[in-house]
């Protein structure tokens, strides 16, 4: 419709490629499909929200991403955040833990406790969560390649602490397919990894039915170069791959779909993001109902964490990231997020300081307490622009998903590197646009400032702490029942080789204080390691 614009008005498209009109009316809403898929909050297709009262009943969970050093260091930061009003925990693990390596592995040198908490055995988990009420504070484990082991550790910890695992709430990221596209903490080959995700979903459905074993991440796909519609469409395609795996084992969709959740990015145009989430809720509900035959409404809910958007934050003038974070929180609130985590202003430089984390937490609390964001559900619902864009974004997501299916499905496209190549080509184009000034970024290619280096407090790397972690692992190995560990690891290998669900054997191994690296190695011995395809076509 942009061709009707006066010559002095510049045509605009959003990042998803949809032309934006200078003014919207009811005619645009009707032309885009009308309000047929709107519904009421809490009713299919849930475009306006998954619950009838949303934040009026309960504000979003506040869950800043936190973890560094050893378990004791991280436990202290957890308690600081809880004391300041945080209502959940979002655990950052160091790279060795995320890649299934023990702290004494040669490949872990210089990385132990650096970007997250180092975990080797259940002993570390006992320290990390000491004094934290796992019934009251829900815990999200940001781990993927080694997620099966860390989920097992969390369930074992909760059981030993006397919590009823059948009622235990919490989330693991455990979305391996996106790790091959962005983030990169894969371990096993693609097919074996999808089976292992299936093992965790199936195991939790049977033993910990309130636990969310997977948080499917559009987030990192967006960070890697995807548009907002691609972000959501690829995430749904990935969620379907996991659902196919589990449904193929005979577990009915309504017994596990309700515990699938999502993690989405927030940077970019405010209205495009709000429309993305509203469109996505309606589309996911339709997929789960029509493709999988779900009948329980809760199976159809697109539950999500939102608020992060590292790709939108800048190294230049980092204090502006506080302002961006406030807008991202506003977008998340307007979009009906269940959980919110904001990137901290200093994150382009370092692990966030306590001070930076408190600013992020207070930003969310400001929205709840001062800005009226919890007073009414889907406050942008009915706006001509938002409803038109919601319809257009949903149609575009459906087109992308159909295209993925026609090209052989998301698992094949990830295994071949096709998705990786496509999003990296887009990231390259985005960088060229930024450098040419076609894409404006405050502080980067306009409104630059020569104030010199900003005052950012760097988080020091604790080399003594890393050595202490290695010593603690040696002590754990010395004091455990070695024969029991050997038997447990044999059981893990046997389960993987037999193609049965490996989770019972992994849980038993964790309880015997087998380490993350030992259990991962047992699995690698059977299924092998991933080899990364590298492609640079457009």
């Amino acid at each position: 419709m942009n061709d009707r614009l006066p010559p002095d008005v510049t045509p605009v498209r959003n990042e998803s490629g949809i032309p934006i009109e200078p003014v919207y009316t009811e005619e645009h809403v009707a032309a885009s499909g009308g309000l047929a898929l709107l519904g009421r909050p809490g009713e299919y297709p849930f475009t306006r929200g998954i619950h009838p009262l949303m934040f009026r009943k309960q504000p979003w969970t506040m869950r800043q991403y936190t973890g560094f050093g050893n378990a004791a260091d991280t436990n202290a930061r957890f308690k600081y955040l809880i004391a300041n009003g945080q209502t959940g925990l979002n655990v950052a693990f160091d790279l060795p833990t995320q890649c299934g390596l023990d702290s004494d592995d040669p490949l872990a040198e210089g990385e132990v406790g650096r970007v997250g908490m180092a975990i080797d055995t259940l002993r570390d988990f006992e320290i990390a969560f000491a004094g934290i009420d796992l019934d009251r504070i829900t815990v999200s484990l940001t781990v993927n390649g080694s997620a099966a082991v860390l989920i097992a550790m969390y369930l074992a910890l909760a059981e030993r602490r006397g919590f009823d695992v059948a009622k235990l709430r919490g989330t693991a990221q455990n979305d391996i397919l996106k790790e091959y596209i962005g983030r990169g903490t894969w371990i096993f080959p693609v097919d074996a990894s999808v089976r292992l995700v299936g093992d965790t979903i199936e195991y939790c459905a049977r033993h910990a039915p309130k636990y969310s074993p997977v948080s499917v991440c559009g987030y990192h796909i967006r960070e890697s170069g995807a548009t907002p519609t691609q972000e959501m469409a690829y995430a749904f395609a990935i969620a379907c791959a996991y659902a196919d795996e589990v449904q193929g084992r005979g577990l009915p969709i309504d017994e596990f779909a309700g515990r699938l959740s999502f993690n989405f990015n927030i940077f970019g145009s405010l209205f495009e993001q709000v429309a993305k989430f509203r469109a996505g809720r309606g589309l996911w509900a339709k997929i789960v109902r029509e493709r999988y035959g779900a009948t329980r409404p809760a199976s159809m809910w697109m539950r999500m964490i939102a608020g992060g958007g590292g790709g939108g934050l800048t190294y230049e003038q980092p204090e502006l990231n506080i302002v961006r974070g406030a807008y991202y929180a506003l977008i998340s609130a307007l979009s009906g997020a269940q959980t919110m985590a904001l990137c901290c202003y200093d994150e382009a430089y370092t692990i966030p300081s306590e001070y930076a984390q408190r600013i992020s937490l207070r930003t969310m609390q400001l929205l709840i307490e001062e800005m009226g964001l919890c007073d009414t559900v889907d406050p942008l619902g009915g706006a001509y622009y938002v409803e038109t864009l919601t319809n257009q974004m949903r149609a575009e997501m459906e087109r992308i998903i159909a295209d993925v299916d026609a090209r052989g499905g998301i698992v094949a496209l990830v295994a071949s590197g096709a998705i990786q190549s496509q999003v990296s080509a887009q990231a390259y184009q985005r960088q060229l646009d930024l450098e040419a000034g076609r894409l404006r970024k405050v502080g980067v290619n306009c409104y630059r400032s020569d104030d010199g280096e900003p005052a950012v407090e760097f988080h020091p790397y604790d080399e003594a702490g890393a050595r202490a972690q290695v010593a603690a692992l040696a002590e754990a190995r010395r004091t455990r029942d070695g024969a029991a560990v050997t038997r447990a690891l044999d059981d893990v290998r046997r389960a993987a080789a037999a193609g049965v669900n490996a989770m019972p054997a992994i849980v038993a191994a964790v309880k015997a204080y087998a380490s993350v690296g030992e259990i991962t190695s047992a699995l690698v011995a059977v299924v092998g390691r991933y080899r990364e395809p590298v492609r640079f076509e457009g």
Partner: protein
Amino acid sequence: MSRPGRARPIRVVLAKPGLDGHDQGAKVVARALLAAGMEVIYTGLRQTPDAVARVALEEDADVIALSSMAGSHLAFCRRLQPLLAQAGLTDKLWIIGGNLPRQDHDALRALGFRGVFPTGSRLDDITRYIEENAG
């Protein structure tokens, strides 16, 4: 595009050191170097110091480029430097980019990484630096 007096395009081994999985930047730089007519051998993730030195030698690299986003750049470069020296690669151009705090730049240069490109560097600056400084 080959430069005058240069018998072949500049060959760049571009590596992701250590366990850091953030490869968006490395892949964007790889595309920029390819567009500038260079040959790029991208190693993919999880490279050890030994692997970087071996690939650089085997591929007859003119440029050894690292992309580090997760803070272990100094620890990695301290281990890589003697291996590159042993392999006889000290006359090659060593560069590094990524999340590199300013206070670490002198230490990186002292280790032999002459080109240091922190977050916010422009692609054309990286490309020009390589064209002007590669062997």
